[in-house]
């Protein structure tokens, strides 16, 4: 289910995302929901990169979720991929309103231990925000897509 009320609440995510990035020493952070909607980001230079990381991260999360279920787990707490210069952390978490996925990229200024530590704080902060601390009305995908028919001319009116 896609959120139709994000513009109202998404700006409130900026502070927790910024703090998570600063405290955990992250290079990039992306917060998406399970529908693939980008809720917040920090560190990306191009929209194209945001979309790429969001789609790949959501795909990795879906695959790992399927693997977890295959071996009898409800899900994994997080995923961590370590590279030579950069590492990726994918942390799914549940808020009262919806399930979210944080994707974080970090380098030598941080560690998986630090990211885990401040991820817990980040989850608590987001879960307490208006828009996520309680279930919100959503529109189904078909209605949403229909709504998207409105074009720029509708904005400016006549």
């Amino acid at each position: 289910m896609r959120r139709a009320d994000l513009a109202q609440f998404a700006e409130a995510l900026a502070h927790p995302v910024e703090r998570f990035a600063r405290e955990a020493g992250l290079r990039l952070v992306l917060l998406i929901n399970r529908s693939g909607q980008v809720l917040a980001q920090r560190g990306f230079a191009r929209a194209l990169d945001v979309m790429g990381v969001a789609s790949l991260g959501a795909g990795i999360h879906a695959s790992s979720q399927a693997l977890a279920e295959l071996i009898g787990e409800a899900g994994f707490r997080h995923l961590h991929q370590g590279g030579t210069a950069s590492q990726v952390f994918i942390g799914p978490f549940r808020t009262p309103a919806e399930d979210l996925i944080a994707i974080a990229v970090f380098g030598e200024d941080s560690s998986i231990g630090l990211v885990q530590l401040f991820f817990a704080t980040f989850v608590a902060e987001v879960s307490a925000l208006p828009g996520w601390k309680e279930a919100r009305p959503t529109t189904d995908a078909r209605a949403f897509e229909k709504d998207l028919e409105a074009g720029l001319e509708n904005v400016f009116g006549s």
Partner: protein
Amino acid sequence: MSGYAELLDRVNRVTGVRGSMVVAVEDGLVVAEELMLGVPGDAVAALVASIFRRARRSMSAADFGDAAFVQVDGEDGLLFAAAPPQLGDLLLVVVAESWVNVGLVRLEAARVVEALGG
């Protein structure tokens, strides 16, 4: 009790020590820990390892060699991290009260490190 735990217990006998742990320096994750109730091991491991890595880079930039020991003094507590060659990529981390006998902690830590290397 693991081999590490037995050795950590020796450090913890020093009055004022609230716990000690073996930590992976690159990951900031706990390998072994013997901590008093209320000491957040995961947080100590991540934060101390991060400070140690920073200190190591600073010392390298200054051409002072590899950092082997780091001590962080807080108003209400002390953190120690020792990285002797015997431990490879691991740190011995000690959490203590601010009034602890630092020399005694360092001495006991050195003994533990020696034992770990042997």
